[in-house]
């Protein structure tokens, strides 16, 4: 009984399989038109996010983010550098401002001394020349007026009011302070002026300053 049942089942399966192997039932003729209209209505919308577009977008995003990060780090580094340089510069400026004032005073005093010495030497030479001229005429004592006697002489230009000179004595010559450059009184700088000066000097400073 069981054998017959299984045999029947096998026969049933193979019978149906054979029957449906090449089964074909023609659908109604209007079917194609229905399919065509339905397909054109349900056509797949063109996808924007295809593989190509997504990869391109991802690459673009990566590039932009990398550039952003690069610029960000670059700016922060620059700010750090300029910050340290400014501090150094401020320190230097503070030191030099005090020092400059003293230096200027010293240099001016030195200049004055130098010019005094030069003019003194010149006067001495002139007086000596005059004396030698006068001794050549035979006068022991002579009231000397260089401006009238020797108009071409340049000494007269320097010494306008000559004092009477006796031989053997050194002439007392006052230095001509009028010909010297006048010392302009140092103008006191306000905080704002100093600050603007610093800014101007900063703006001229190169962006990349090698840190020693």
């Amino acid at each position, binding site marked *: 009984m069981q054998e017959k049942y299984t045999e*029947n*089942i096998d*026969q*049933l*399966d193979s*019978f*149906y*399989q054979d*029957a*449906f192997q090449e*089964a*074909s*039932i*023609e*659908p*109604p003729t209007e*079917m*194609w038109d*229905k*399919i*065509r209209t*339905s*397909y054109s209505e*349900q*056509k*797949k919308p063109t996808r924007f996010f295809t593989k190509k577009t997504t990869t391109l977008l991802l690459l673009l995003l990566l590039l932009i983010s990398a550039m952003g990060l690069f610029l960000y780090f670059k700016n922060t580094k620059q700010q750090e550098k300029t910050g340290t340089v400014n501090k150094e510069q401020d320190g230097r400026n503070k030191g030099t401002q005090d020092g400059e004032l003293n230096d200027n005073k010293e240099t001016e005093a030195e200049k004055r001394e130098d010019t005094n010495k030069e003019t003194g030497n010149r006067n001495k030479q002139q007086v000596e020349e005059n004396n030698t001229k006068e001794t050549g005429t035979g006068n022991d004592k002579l009231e000397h007026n260089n401006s009238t006697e020797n108009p071409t002489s340049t000494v007269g230009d320097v010494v306008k009011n000559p004092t009477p000179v006796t031989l053997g004595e050194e002439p007392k010559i006052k230095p001509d302070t009028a010909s010297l450059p006048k010392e302009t009184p140092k103008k006191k700088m306000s905080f704002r002026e100093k600050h603007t000066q610093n800014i101007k000097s900063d703006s001229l400073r190169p962006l990349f300053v090698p840190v020693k």
Partner: protein
Amino acid sequence: MPFTNLIQKCLADDPAAQKELYKLLAGKLFAICLRYTKNRQEAEDWLQDSFVKIFQNLDKFKADGSFEGWAKRITVNYLISEYRKSKRFGSVLDLDSVLELSETQESAHSAILYEELIKFINLLPEGKKLVFNLSVLEGYSHKEIAELLNITEGASRGQLAKAREMLIEIHKKNNTVHAGKIY
């Protein structure tokens, strides 16, 4: 491969090629649709939707396999999804009522054998019909059927056994020529 050129043209949205492809497959796919439903109108609707799915997914077809097999698989998968939507699995048909129905069917001596057999298959309850179609006629394993229908493999085997019993009974009652071959 006879379908290769047609597929290429169909992908280029050539209506003539699409019609040619339809002509080659329509009869076979309609036979499949008719095996899963008693209602002819429903089978026509399923065929229409299946073809739309085939045309829409044509770019996914890999040339290494059979195009006809691929198209049949798309159709069957679509039919199963429709089954799931309509939740027909629960319906159980009484065998006596099936036999009564079968008596009203056309004679077993019909010229078109498979159309008659389709009617016999459609006399089965929905779940059993589905398992019988998938296992015997589509060649799915019980594991695949279990996954597709979301049932256990044992349940699939049980449904198939019952479907076979019922079909034998139908053939006996109809006293068909085929029954003579089977018994």
